[in-house]
């Protein structure tokens, strides 16, 4: 409970500080920008938070995003598919990659780190093969609107993020499935003893993570009007950072759907603020690292204090 407020407080505190330092920061358009800029990382982090809640990890999200973006774009541009079916197939591929990781973890007994790391390499390789290393452009307006358009003054990306956040929240807090995810993260043995199908749920959380990654890949492609073979490089680390900064436990069993989104907004705010402050890019990277340490330490301390209070 306290943790949840903690990340919200960090978010508010950070934004207030930035608003004081840079007059441009608190403009409505800039805030909308931050929300939009953070939304792709946030969607990946939402999906990724599910394996993490079970005590696992999924490193393949970055290359799954690139592959889904490339395949959806390629099918439309090269093979003349409709936007709807091309994106549908790309999302199915994302689910498939995720399910495969889940199977390797459950049946192959591979550590999630290894299973997803391997598929990260496979995914990136497949993307380069499919794109022949070159970007795919010439996407129709219907596709592009997903990532670049807006409804009223709210970017579509933001609307999609809000919908997905709400859905994940309901899934985690209101459904039996969600409760079982927490149980597995708390203790897989206890969960098994309670008759929870641990294997099936484990596979499914990776599939959902793959889905979110693929969806974000499509959105990224729509935002850049082209599918880049190297798209999403480093996205997995950004998403993991968002999950952790948002206050979810990397060990599993603790967290909620809002954490990863707040974490992404904190990171997005930092990046935007540093840009507005005209801080040179080399120094920006140092500052980002420091803020990550401070945010996670604050969280960890409050967690430890709770434990001591028992």
């Amino acid at each position: 409970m306290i943790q949840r407020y903690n990340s919200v407080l960090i978010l508010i505190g950070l934004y207030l500080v930035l608003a004081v330092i840079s007059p441009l920061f608190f403009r409505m358009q800039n805030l909308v920008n931050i929300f939009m800029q953070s939304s792709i990382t946030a969607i990946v982090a939402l999906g990724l938070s599910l394996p993490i809640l079970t005590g696992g990890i999924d490193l393949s999200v970055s290359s799954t995003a690139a592959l889904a973006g490339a395949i959806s774009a390629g099918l439309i541009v090269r093979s003349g598919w409709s936007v709807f079916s091309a994106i549908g197939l790309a999302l199915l591929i994302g689910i498939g990659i995720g399910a495969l990781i889940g199977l390797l973890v459950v049946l192959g007994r591979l550590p999630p780190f290894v299973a997803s790391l391997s598929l990260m390499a496979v995914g990136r390789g497949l993307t380069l093969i499919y794109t022949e290393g070159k970007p795919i452009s010439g996407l129709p307006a219907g596709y592009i609107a997903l990532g670049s358009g807006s409804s009223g003054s709210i970017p579509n990306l933001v609307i999609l993020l809000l919908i997905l956040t709400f859905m994940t929240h309901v899934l985690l807090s209101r459904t039996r499935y969600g409760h079982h995810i927490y149980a597995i993260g708390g203790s897989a043995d206890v969960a098994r003893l309670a008759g929870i199908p641990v294997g099936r749920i484990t596979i499914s959380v990776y599939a959902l993570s793959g889905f979110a990654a693929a969806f974000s890949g499509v959105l990224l492609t729509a935002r850049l009007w082209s599918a880049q073979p190297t798209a999403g490089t480093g996205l997995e680390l950004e998403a993991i950072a968002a999950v952790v900064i948002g206050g979810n436990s990397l060990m599993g069993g603790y967290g909620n759907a809002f954490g990863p989104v707040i974490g992404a907004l904190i990171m997005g705010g930092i990046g935007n603020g540093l840009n507005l402050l005209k801080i040179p890019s080399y120094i920006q990277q140092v500052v980002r690292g420091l803020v990550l340490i401070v945010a996670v330490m604050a969280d960890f301390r409050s967690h430890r204090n709770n434990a001591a209070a028992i």
Partner: protein
Amino acid sequence: MKRLLVLLFVLGSISGVLFARGDLEGTVYGLSISTLNNPFFVTLKEGAEAKASELGVSLIIVDSQDDPAKEAVNMEDLIQQGVDAILVNPTDADAIVPSIMKANAAAIPVLTIDRGAAGGEIVAHIASDNVAGGRMAAEFLVEAIGGSGKLVELEGIAGTSAARDRGEGFNAVVGAVPGIEVVARQTANFNRAEGLSVFENILQAQPEINGVFAHNDEMILGAIEAAKAAGNTGIVFVGFDAIDDAIVAVEDGSLAATVAQQPDMIGALGVETAYKYLMGETVSANIPVDLALVR
């Protein structure tokens, strides 16, 4: 928690004081660079900075780290800051288009540097003059072999602008010299290994060759190896790009010359062109930057 907020505030204030140099008054250009992990672009940035301080304008430099998504974010942040002009060195010609359109919508003029864009309204494109570079290489080569003889041209990947422009400049010169004959013209795809094998084959068919021009250094270095292996000396080799290996080869004499781009001049010309445009002068849509011969 309170302590953390204080810490954040202090950190923020310190960085604000340290780095928020200059105010938003006066003319400000945004410069978006594809990556600052590459010395070429770092030099380009330094050229732009020097020119900016000479002209009394300030620069906001953002680094895309070769990631088009980060580039889009940086471009949005530049637009948000209301800069007077944006100089962009895109990570990718297609991926930059939506960002340029956003700048267009905000009535901020955009200039592309080194790499072009596939769409959007561009005030000017500033890049190395590859045609002139090809010409420069040809003139050097013709002189080095004494005005007549047999030449070979190793071409880059078909369809790339670099291969097209460098070839065009080269052939315009050699075609006008009566004693020069280009006995072979083949592609080695900008690749050292292919340069080697392609030139081996050429040597089989044409043992007597006086000079070779390749569209980049990788290919010419491959060709030099092939010549060495065949025991063929006395060929004049000319490359393009002045990569580190090529500079070494020039120093030890195996490579006669290579054509170097001048990134600092590209950066400086970019800033200068933006400045002229904003002062109401007409600028040409394509601004070629001279190259230099390293010999």
